[in-house]
């Protein structure tokens, strides 16, 4: 059995001592979890080690830690996988509390101080549409499929821990809360979608503060891909509600798209002023003045010439313009969501594939979606012993492709579960 060195970051604010690392030896198979190793050490060697955990099965979301630099659930991280990332020698696993949150003791962080405050920031409940129906809301089946991915979140905070924007801007609403926001923005029963979007677009630390670093996608143990949900929020805000935020988020997006439609390749000299609303926009003037030293440096080093900046060397071919026109003029945007529709190779290997047909592209809000759907909602307390309340609804309807708007394909989302829950994530 391999021998692992567990290098734990110890910190007890009440002791008055500085944080330090302490080594413990554990003998466990590589396929056992980091959590098992921590608990073994706590049981056999040092009962004072602070760690939070409950279900030990990647459901409750309590045991988020960083192992060799990467955030995740301790119970969901194999020792051998963590050891591969070691920079401190063979079979050394450095276990630290999650980042971006204050440490309470050892591996326990203050989720309330950061994570839960941000979750509450996005109004994490449904604002019911009026009039409230006597029985239940009837919504299109595919609209619920659209929010399935965000529902897989177990609030472990791993994405918050590794968020690189939050590292620099602690006020950033952050990946978990924004994914939660999409849960309601994408829900047709919610009455305040536009207000939610406009609030998050106008906030200088809102949805346009995300830097596309993919850390949250990498950290999430449940495949929620918070960054993808942030992009969907932006898509809804910009394309469906035309929210012109003060952070230049939507303007930058539109300037970029216009730039490529015109030039085929990016013409940077136009992008900057256009992102601020055009060269003569009142907002653009101070921004462009502050960028002047950068532009002058670029000219001085010969990176760019005046001629190159003014002339558009590249012109988009008519073919590229045609693609823009074809796709942008569709009545509904087509999105292929891998989380929901999967990969045909994997599906071919899986005899339990219920649909049997090739998965269709999912279009936002309306049109074609099929397949088994797991709608899973979990509410988790942040106490040492987490409480999990789980509602699971399973639909196994296969809906034929029908033209939008979809009327027939309706699903009662409050229907009781009548079969065994299936795993919501794609681990």
């Amino acid at each position: 059995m391999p021998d692992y060195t567990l290098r734990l970051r110890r910190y007890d604010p009440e002791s008055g001592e500085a944080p330090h690392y302490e080594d413990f030896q554990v003998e466990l198979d590589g396929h056992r979890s980091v959590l098992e190793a921590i608990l073994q050490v706590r049981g056999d060697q040092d009962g004072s080690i602070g760690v939070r955990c409950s279900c030990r099965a990647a459901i409750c979301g309590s045991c988020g830690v960083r192992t060799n630099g990467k955030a995740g659930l301790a119970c969901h991280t194999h020792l051998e996988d963590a050891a591969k990332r070691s920079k401190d020698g063979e079979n050394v696993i450095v276990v630290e509390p999650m980042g971006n949150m204050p440490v309470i003791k050892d591996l326990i962080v203050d989720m309330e101080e950061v994570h839960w405050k941000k979750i509450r920031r996005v109004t994490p409940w449904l604002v019911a549409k009026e009039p409230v129906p006597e029985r239940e809301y009837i919504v299109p089946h595919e609209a619920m499929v659209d929010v399935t991915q965000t529902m897989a979140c177990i609030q472990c905070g791993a994405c918050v821990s590794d968020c690189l924007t939050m590292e620099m801007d602690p006020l950033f609403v952050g990946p978990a809360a924004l994914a939660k926001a999409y849960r309601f923005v994408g829900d047709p029963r919610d009455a305040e979608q536009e207000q939610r979007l406009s609030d998050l677009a106008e906030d200088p630390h809102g949805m346009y503060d995300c830097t596309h670093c993919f850390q949250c996608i990498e950290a999430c143990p449940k495949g929620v891909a918070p960054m993808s949900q942030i992009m969907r929020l932006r898509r809804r805000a910009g394309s469906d509600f035309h929210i012109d935020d003060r952070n230049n988020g939507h303007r930058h997006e539109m300037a970029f798209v216009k730039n490529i439609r015109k030039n085929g390749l990016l013409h940077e000299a136009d992008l900057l002023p256009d992102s601020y609303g055009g060269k003569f926009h009142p907002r653009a003037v101070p921004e462009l003045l502050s960028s002047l030293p950068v532009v002058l440096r670029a000219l001085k080093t010969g990176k760019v010439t005046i001629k190159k900046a003014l002339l558009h060397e590249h012109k988009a071919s008519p073919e590229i313009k045609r693609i823009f026109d074809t796709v942008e003029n569709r009545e509904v945007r087509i999105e292929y969501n891998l989380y929901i529709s999967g990969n045909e190779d994997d599906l071919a290997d899986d005899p339990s594939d219920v649909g049997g047909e090739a998965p269709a592209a999912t279009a936002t809000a309306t049109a074609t979606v099929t397949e088994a759907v797991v709608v899973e909602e979990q509410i988790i307390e942040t106490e040492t012993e987490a409480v999990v309340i789980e509602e699971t609804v399973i639909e196994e309807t296969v809906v034929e492709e029908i033209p939008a708007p979809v009327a027939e394909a309706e699903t009662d989302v409050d229907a009781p579960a009548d079969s065994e829950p299936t795993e919501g994530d794609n681990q």
Partner: protein
Amino acid sequence: MKVAYWPGCVSRGFTPELHGSMQAVAPLLDLELIEIDRGSCCGAGVIAEHNQELADTLNARTFALAAETPGELMMNICSTCQGAQSECQERLDASAEYRAEINTTLEAEGLAYEKGLVTNKNFLWLLVEEIGLENLTKKVKRPLTGLKVGPFYGCYIVRPTDRLGINDENPRDTYMEKVIEALGGEVIDYAGVHKCCGFPIITMNKKASLQMAGTHLADATDADADCLVVPCPLCHLNLDLQQPMAAGEIGRDLSMPVLHLPQLVGLALGLEPKELGLQRHVIKPTSVIDWTTAVVGSADGASSGW
């Protein structure tokens, strides 16, 4: 080997020295670059954010154009292109039905995306997986002895690991270190190696963006690096062009040269700094090159001046 070459936009725009240095270094590596000259911008994540199908269609078109060349592979020189194109390719490869839909749009031009036809590799991946580190070392004429190089990857080429094929067999998130060593340099490890340069939010949250760039540059300085090397021109914009602003933002003097990957390879393979466009950087690589003798190395570089 022949490759379908995708230079991207920025390497021909605000960092022309990247495209130039790649063209200069290619013959020394026996690479024949067949440029995909009708291709369009990968969308850099922004077009996908606006309309996913649009990004997928544009990139499917670029892949289809790459397949028409006699290149064995498609090669890019930009982390962002790699990431954005891999994302689109992942969706295109996932469903025959979706592929067919995209190809309907491409049909008018007589193009089609076919699954499994085009492998798209960043120059970094190609160096390690196709050219080989041993082979690379053999070609070195001017080893980077004593040069302390900090790698900076850029987010799009290291995450998400499964999409980018980063695994035990291909530990692509460690290739920069391997290449630096193969060229005779010394690898500097620092906190920012796999972090974000901040470029994507430069127009939305300039403060946070410059703090990111400044912090990584300062960390590399504290770790005693002579220079950074990047496989991504967008990272280069924030780390080099914006470096004076980043220094102002974090309140500390910074003077960290940032080299494009083909420039670092070119120097070791014996090319002259000017052929590689090193004079076009905002932060002059004085710590990398003694310009009077064009000797690469840090030992006396700092004192030689310009």
